[in-house]
């Protein structure tokens, strides 16, 4: 069964110089799409990836990453909305490139579907009450 998942990888300093992603492709036949990367030699690295492939191979690939010492978080949890601060104004709706925000046509409440979110971060400073939070 084929799966597509978005994950956040955190590399400790010792792994930054190793070709980890290359192994995902070569050994587990996973297709990857880099959504966000900040890897500094000699420092910690952070990579937001979309991985596509066979479920079995995907699981093995993730297992390999964990064993190698990479910390993994599922991306959907990484951009969250502080419901207390959100006023449902709608400023985020047209800023989001993937349509993760939708206005309920009846109530005019702004709904956030974080499965569509690619964690690009554009909504974070564009939100007037700063209700969107990114956790890496």
């Amino acid at each position, binding site marked *: 069964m084929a799966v597509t998942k978005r994950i956040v990888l955190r590399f400790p300093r010792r792994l930054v110089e190793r070709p980890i992603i290359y192994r995902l492709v070569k050994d587990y036949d996973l297709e990857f799409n880099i959504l966000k990367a900040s890897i500094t030699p000699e420092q910690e690295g952070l990579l937001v990836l979309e991985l596509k492939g066979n479920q079995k191979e995907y699981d093995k690939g993730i297992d390999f990453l964990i064993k190698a010492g990479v910390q993994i978080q599922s991306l959907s949890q990484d951009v969250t909305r502080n419901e207390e601060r959100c*006023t449902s*104004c*709608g*400023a985020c*709706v*047209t800023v989001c490139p993937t349509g993760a925000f939708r206005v309920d046509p009846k109530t005019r409440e702004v709904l956030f579907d974080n499965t569509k979110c690619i964690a690009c971060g554009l909504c974070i*400073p*564009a939100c*007037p*009450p700063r209700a969107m939070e990114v956790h890496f």
Partner: protein
Amino acid sequence: MAKTIAEINEKIKEGKAVVFNAEEIIDVAREKGIKRAAQEVDVVTTGTFGIMCSSGAYFNIGHAKPRFKLGGGRAYLNDVPAYTGLAAADLFLGANALPDDDPRNRVHPGEFTYGGGHVIEELVAGKDVRLVATAFGTDCYPRKKLETLLNIKDLNEAVLFNIRNAYQNYNVAVNCSDKTIYTYMGVLKAQLGNANYSSAGQLSPLFNDPYYKTIGIGTRIFLGGGTGFVAWQGTQHNPGVPRTEKGIPKEGAGTLAVIGDLKQMNARWLVGTSVLGYGCSLTVGIGVPIPVLSEEILEYTAVTDADILAPVVDYSDAFPNLKPDILGEVSYAELKSGKIKVKGKDVPTASRSSYPRALEIANLLKEWIQSGKFLLTEAVQPLPGAESAVKVKPLNERPIEY
């Protein structure tokens, strides 16, 4: 059938007033007809919840021992500068004020994470705020330095005083240029990438009383979760703009200056706001009750989003250069459909003001009136109307001769 405000207040006290919000009244008027609806309904409640930049608050902090004079000195609340051109213990804080060390737009677009609006929100939420002030010292006010925590409950007065709120209509902002721009109307993507608007439309106070027949100086209102009053017409009040057949202004027109005791307000309705690339502000909740004194007034309150038109303005050129050009007019019904047509192109829309919160305000005000705890007031003086000579003028710049 003409009713008076005194008669309506009697019904409110008896718990018998018939109240609808400005959304519900549309269907009530449709079902019952204007005449019957005007007889049966006493009050229509309106609401708006949006970024209102010309907002601020003044405080009296009490006298220090030994005495300290703020007036003519410098004062900061949580590092945000407050105005000290008043007497010894008075301060005014504007929603747009920024800390001296805020990088502003040095790296564009600036984030503006904390400013005057945020200080007001924190005070209202009951949080302690740091006051750091310096003065020159006098014989009667000897101290030169003051550093203390302040809490709203200890202040002698904490008063929200917004000199321009609740704009009657507003521009729809678009960007015709080739690069993204960061405006007070939000992030505007290049080549008509999006269109932002900012009004509660059919729920907004001044759309429901377009000729200011009931809303005037002294009108008691919902302000920031508490009660307040219309203090004056707002700055830039511009009642003489072109109107539709039903009297609805087709561009920014009337405005309100409002005042109220900050101590009884609530941070849900006064939210510190950051506008990317533009600055800090305050999002303010306002609700105005409209007494149904006549059929004419009822008819005004039955206004719908389809009746209200707003001008589409290019914020990459026409707006910054104060050109009158508009790219067309669209109704709030079209804006709320999610897209509008500009220059033949479908442009996705987004709101800057919150309709759900505006509705919540109108409903809260309705509850207050129904439960007898909010009485209506007669305006002490009307706002300048469409026939008045009050008009917004641009700045006439004149060279200074040295």
